[in-house]
């Protein structure tokens, strides 16, 4: 089996997840490569349809037909330091992995919990599924988890049903469920998108604190660059199923080496920057056009039709992911000029 550096917990290498029907093949993820280090957070950023969610579902083995992994490796190091290739894992092997080694939280906290069971029941179910514990023990651990995710008055909240809780609380319960068996990798698929801004900040805070406490690595999927700045160590920017830029978070915000990332950042509303000295509100920048359909990508760079910097060479062949400074990569021919 391929080797994995000791400090790396997850290594996605040339992952290709394709959806094949009789009429077309949609390459939702096409040659994605990145590494996630132990105890760190990697953010995967991109618009809708960029392939970021499919990437995370591929890691979980949850891509449903007609989709499937067409190639590449997903190397994952478990608690016992064994390295698995998740791309080759059987459904049975995956079941042993999910919940115990890798856990996932979702976008919709309002509907991610079963309305018919108390939250204590649902956290307890997770624990007793993966570990041989008694009912009382599972309940005790569920209570501990509720305290870990900072739900006030946890003793009484344990017997609440999901409908008795707010969205933020339910997301906390989801996090408690996900972390109940102490997984080494947490995949968070836009966990704050459905929440109020103030609650978002609280949840991000909580995740950061829990990461220190439990030591898990987080793969954070989002389209919100503000959230990325808050939580990530390393950032991967995806466009049309490919990685277009990768950099440590501070470097990325200091200087973007791909016009798409630059555009994304310019699109973020900014309280002070957007008002001129005369007090006039400037129009918010937007990237012209939209993401091309994944079944009909242009021959060259997928971003070329929307790019201000595109030249003839960009439209000819798809550019490769190239080094663009220390520890960072860019899929742009003109990254030096940025």
């Amino acid at each position, binding site marked *: 089996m391929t080797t994995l550096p000791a400090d790396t917990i997850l290594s996605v290498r040339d992952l290709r997840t394709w959806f094949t029907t009789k009429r077309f093949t949609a390459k939702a993820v096409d040659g994605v490569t990145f590494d996630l280090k132990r105890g760190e957070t990697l953010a995967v950023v991109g618009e809708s349809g960029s392939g970021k969610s499919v990437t995370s579902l591929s890691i*979980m083995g*949850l891509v449903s*037909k007609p989709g499937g992994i067409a190639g590449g490796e997903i190397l994952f190091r478990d608690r016992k330091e064994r390295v698995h290739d998740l791309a080759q894992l059987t459904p049975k092997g995956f*079941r*042993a*992995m*999910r*919940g*115990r080694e890798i*856990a*996932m*939280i*979702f976008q*919709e906290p309002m*509907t*991610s*919990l*079963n*309305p*018919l*069971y108390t939250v204590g029941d649902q956290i307890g*179910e*997770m624990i007793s*599924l*993966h570990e041989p514990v008694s009912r009382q023990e599972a309940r005790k651990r569920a209570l501990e988890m509720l305290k870990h995710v900072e739900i006030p*008055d946890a003793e*009484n*909240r344990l*017997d*609440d*049903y999901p*409908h*008795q809780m707010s969205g933020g609380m339910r997301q906390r319960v*989801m996090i408690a*469920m*996900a972390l109940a068996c102490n997984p080494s990798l947490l995949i968070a698929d836009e966990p704050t998108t459905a929440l109020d801004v103030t609650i978002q900040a609280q949840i991000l805070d909580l995740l950061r604190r829990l990461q220190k406490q439990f030591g898990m690595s987080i793969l954070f999927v989002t389209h919100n660059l503000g959230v990325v700045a808050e939580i990530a160590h390393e950032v991967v920017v995806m466009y049309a199923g490919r990685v277009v830029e990768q950099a440590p978070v501070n470097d990325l915000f200091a200087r973007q080496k791909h016009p798409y990332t630059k555009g994304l950042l310019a699109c973020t509303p900014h309280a002070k920057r957007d008002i001129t000295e005369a007090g006039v509100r400037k129009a918010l920048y937007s990237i012209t056009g939209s993401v091309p359909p994944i079944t009909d990508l242009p021959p060259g760079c997928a971003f070329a039709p929307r790019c201000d910097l595109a030249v003839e060479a960009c439209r000819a062949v798809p550019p490769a992911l190239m080094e663009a400074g220390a520890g960072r990569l860019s899929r742009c021919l003109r990254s030096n000029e940025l």
Partner: protein
Amino acid sequence: MAGAVSVAGQEPNLLMRLMSRPTALAGLVVLVVVTLAALLAPWLSTHAPGQLSIVNRLTPPGSAYLMGTDDLGRDIFSRVLHSGRTSLMVGFLVVGVASVIGIFLGLIAGFFRKADAPVSRLIDAMMAFPDILLAIALVAALGASATNVILALGIVYAPRLARVVRASTLVIRELPYVEAARALGVPTPVILVRHVLRNVTSPLLVQATFIFAQAILAEAGLSFLGVGISPDIPTWGTMISTGRQFMSTAGWMMLFPGLAIVVTVLALQLLGDGLRDLLDPRLAKDI
């Protein structure tokens, strides 16, 4: 404030909510009375159900025989009570058999995409037969006995439950908490039972009451036609069947078991309607 918050439409006690629906409540009360009467038949009845009294044959209802006697001088009142045991038992067991088969087929068809087409076609094919004909055919094939009547009717009504379960499963399968459960490593059988089946219980309960009512009717129909439970076990259907010969001279022989069927089935239908109104969130708003 801990745990005291309650959201509309989620009050815990179904029975309390049923109180607000007079017709459903009436159905429930009648059903309880009928069930108690059947259960307490040995103590309530005035005569032994099989006790012959040729001298008193075809006596009209009166003080000695509350509902009269039949052609062999047996007390109709006592026989109606005892028949209730058989009829209700058959209805209950038919619901049981239909639920086991129907839930199994419905879950398979609804949850596993590949199984959907073949299982659904099977369900359609079974529903294309008229109920009573299919039941007669099955009883004819299996042989007429109480067990076989229950099995046959269970098979006849299973497709209806299967459809309800399949339809709800199709919806629930796509809900985020099912995907979340899968992402957290919950095995498929546990997802099916804990997360899908538990959320199907409301429509299932409603269907079950209707099937209960229909099973009582169908059993009576089979007995009346002479292909059901053997005539020496009293059921409402066999009583009507024998009473038919004396319809013009001793109408009470048919009247009272017939009334028993009407009252029981009506009560079940009212209860079923009430439950449907209460448990269907789209209809629940106007309460």
